[in-house]
């Protein structure tokens, strides 16, 4: 008799744990919050007077690292209003930035070198 009662309680507890209706309103509210998106790290290589890739799709908060693999010094500068800029990067050096906004950037030393960061804010 006691064993049957224990089994019945266990089944009820197990079923309850599976049902969302068993969550408190506070727990449901926590679950409803948007999940924290995973932040990614992207690499842009500078070689042969080009940024590779020349167009990069990423999420707000992602980090981009530019590494200079060219013979010449280069830099990375936001084009529209000079909102951000790296120092000049000699061969083999790199510079990183957390990206928040879509932007076009270029190398001020070689203005024909241009590329884009396309931020998907969703």
């Amino acid at each position: 008799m006691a064993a049957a009662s224990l089994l019945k309680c266990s089944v009820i507890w197990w079923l309850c744990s599976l049902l969302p209706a068993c969550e408190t309103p506070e727990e449901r509210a926590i679950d409803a919050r948007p999940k924290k998106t995973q932040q990614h790290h992207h690499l842009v290589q500078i070689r042969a007077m080009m940024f590779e890739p020349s167009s990069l799709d990423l999420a707000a908060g992602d980090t981009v690292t530019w590494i200079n693999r060219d013979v010449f010094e280069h830099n990375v500068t936001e084009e529209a209003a000079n909102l951000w800029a790296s120092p000049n990067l000699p061969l083999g050096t790199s510079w990183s930035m957390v990206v928040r906004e879509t932007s076009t950037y270029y190398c001020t030393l070689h203005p024909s070198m241009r590329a884009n960061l396309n931020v998907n804010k969703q």
Partner: protein
Amino acid sequence: MKHIKIRLSMLALLLCFTFSLHHAAAQSELNDAEIAAIAVAANQSDISFAQVAKDRSKNAEIIKFAETMARDHKAVIEQAVALVTKLKVTPQASAVSRKMTTDAETTVKSLRNVPSKKFDKAYIDNEVTYHANVIAAVESILIPQARNAELKSLLQAVLPALKAHLSHAQMVQKMFK
């Protein structure tokens, strides 16, 4: 009238310098040591032109362009010197490299004597013509004639920079039309 004479004089000098490389190189078979010497002479020429610009110009764009030319062509010379040192090749003067050096000296003298008001345009016009002709010579003569794979590779690696320099020079040139 005086300005027209100065312009014609500059144009003649530009043509003299920039076509000498292409024509002289096209007329003879070059060995790798001669090609290395030509590469150094060509880069040294543009460093000399940049030095005149830094001395004479007051235009920020011209000065910035000249600084980039000096920095980039110095980097190419360093790469060329490192390569010939590694390969144990001594750059060897040829009729082509000697003529380039002589013509560059003539162009430098001319740029130093251009009236101040005409200097920026004279300098950037020279840069456009110089880079267009050096690109033609590297593509059609120096790369095809280079035998050593690393020398050929260096010349190929420099081409995008020469093209970027030409594009940059053409952008600056539009300010002086």
